[in-house]
């Protein structure tokens, strides 16, 4: 059995999962090429105002890991780069990389796909007015608003912010039948942050149920309800109407069976999570198996192995929270190491 410690591993995507995979490989002494489409590492974490369930600062994520990269000297980071082609060869892939416009060819022994997710386009939900009313945001757009507010750029009057969960998720008519898994948690986080920033403001969360199955998740949501006094209203909003510069929400409180109206200044739509454009491209390029929605599917009884020498990490497989992305990144790295050792 030959040990191929000099064989490269290609990590596609520089978000939480990709960074973690590259770090584990690099620290174990394996050379890595990390390809990132944008001009900085961190992926979605760069857009977030805080994290659940421990209110950690996402800005603190990337820096220590970049230090690890520098220390191990094994990780080559290619920003503003994409994988433009691939060919199966013996013991790996011959990949073409577009490195800031310069073509490069590499022979790699393993590939880790960490191309992430995107939020569903909400133009099909005319009733919520995303795109037509100024203050209706999707959840990632609202993270940017929260960052602005946290930086001191606050509205004068404490705002009323309403959060709609399951917009596009658990929706068999206009969206996806699946639960996007992380919206319950980040919505609780966002609603809690609003109350932290504006103790006199109001946060409403319209929900069908909250799914908090993770360590400290239930406690997190309960603390947002009980300690931060975010109001959870059970029901799926049916309509948003402009009213004197504000937004009138109509829904039913399904616990009481009464119609409910409430006026809000901002509405945040927890849009369904779907595979990113890059995920679709890589799946096609490497000929990976995907599910009906385009998420990359691992082999039976495999956590991250998609096919021979190809592994997935993070939300290209399915919606996953940061911790899950890290776990998958580390798992993919470990499996990549194993497969490099199996080469003959």
């Amino acid at each position, binding site marked *: 059995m030959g040990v191929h410690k000099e064989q490269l591993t290609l990590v596609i995507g520089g978000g939480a999962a990709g960074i973690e995979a590259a770090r584990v490989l690099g620290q174990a002494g394996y050379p890595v090429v990390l390809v990132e489409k944008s001009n900085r590492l961190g992926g979605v974490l760069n857009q977030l105002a805080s994290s659940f369930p421990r209110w950690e600062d996402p800005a603190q994520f990337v820096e220590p890991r970049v230090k690890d990269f520098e220390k191990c000297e094994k990780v080559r980071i290619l920003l503003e780069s994409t994988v433009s082609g691939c060919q199966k060869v013996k013991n790996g892939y011959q990949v073409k990389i577009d490195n800031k416009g310069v073509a490069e060819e590499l022979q790699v022994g393993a590939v880790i796909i960490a191309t992430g997710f995107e939020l569903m386009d909400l133009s099909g939900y005319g009733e919520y007015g995303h795109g037509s009313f100024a203050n209706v945001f999707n959840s990632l757009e609202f993270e940017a608003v929260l960052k602005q507010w946290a930086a001191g750029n606050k509205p004068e009057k404490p705002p*009323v912010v309403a959060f709609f969960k399951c917009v596009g998720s658990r929706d068999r008519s206009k969206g996806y039948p699946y639960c996007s898994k992380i919206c319950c948690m980040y919505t609780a986080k966002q609603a809690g942050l609003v109350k932290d920033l504006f103790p006199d403001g*109001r946060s*409403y969360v319209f929900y069908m149920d909250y799914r908090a199955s993770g360590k400290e998740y239930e406690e997190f949501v*309960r603390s947002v*309800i*009980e300690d931060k*006094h975010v*109001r959870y*209203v*059970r029901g799926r909003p049916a309509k948003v109407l402009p009213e004197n510069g504000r937004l009138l929400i*109509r829904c039913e*409180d399904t*616990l*009481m*069976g*009464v*119609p*409910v*109206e*409430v*006026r809000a200044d901002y509405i945040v739509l927890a849009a369904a999570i779907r595979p990113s454009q890059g995920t679709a491209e890589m799946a096609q390029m490497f000929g990976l198996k995907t599910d009906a929605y385009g998420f990359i599917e691992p082999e039976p009884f495999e956590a991250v192995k998609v096919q021979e020498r190809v592994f997935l990490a993070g939300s290209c497989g399915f919606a996953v929270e940061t911790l899950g992305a890290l776990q998958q990144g580390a798992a993919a790295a470990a499996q990549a190491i194993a497969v490099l050792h199996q080469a003959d």
Partner: protein
Amino acid sequence: MNATTSPVNQYFKALQLDETDSSLSQEILENCGVDIERCLECGKCSGGCSNTHIFDFTPRKIVQMIKIGDEKRLLHMDSLWCCVACHLCVDRCPSGIDIPRIMDYLREKAITKGIPATRPTVELFHNLMLDQVHKKGRVSELYLILNYNLKSRQYLKNAELGPQMFFKGKLNPIPARVKKMDQVRRLFRPKPGQKGEAR
């Protein structure tokens, strides 16, 4: 008044959530020490309640109404006077929400505000029972029943149970009396800022 015709049970207009506030839940937290925000909305209280068959609002809905600050309906509802404080709801509640304590508080509040009980005989029963406690420190079932039937003019109500209860020793013609009555009286002493004796 029955549940279907009671005006408090009819919602025609949309509830204006922004006009409601959390002052009622705050009030209940301060006066009863019950934090209704702990409610998980599971309905175990209502499922266990011994009286839901005559309630217009089940315990879960009552907690929910406190959450939406619907004081008017709470103080006028029939459930307020049908709850027998059996404590099944609080016994089953996973969050330990003391609903009977809330009911007591709401009944007191309704009476203070002069809102009539939906079941006048229930209020009468409450008063007669407390009168007895006030006088003797204990409740004598026999005199309570006699008094109640007389005053509510249902002279023969449940009369057929009398002999049975008597022979089982449940109806003692000699009323018991607490020895240290001064301690009982202390229970009735008004709280600071309260008018009249507490009942």
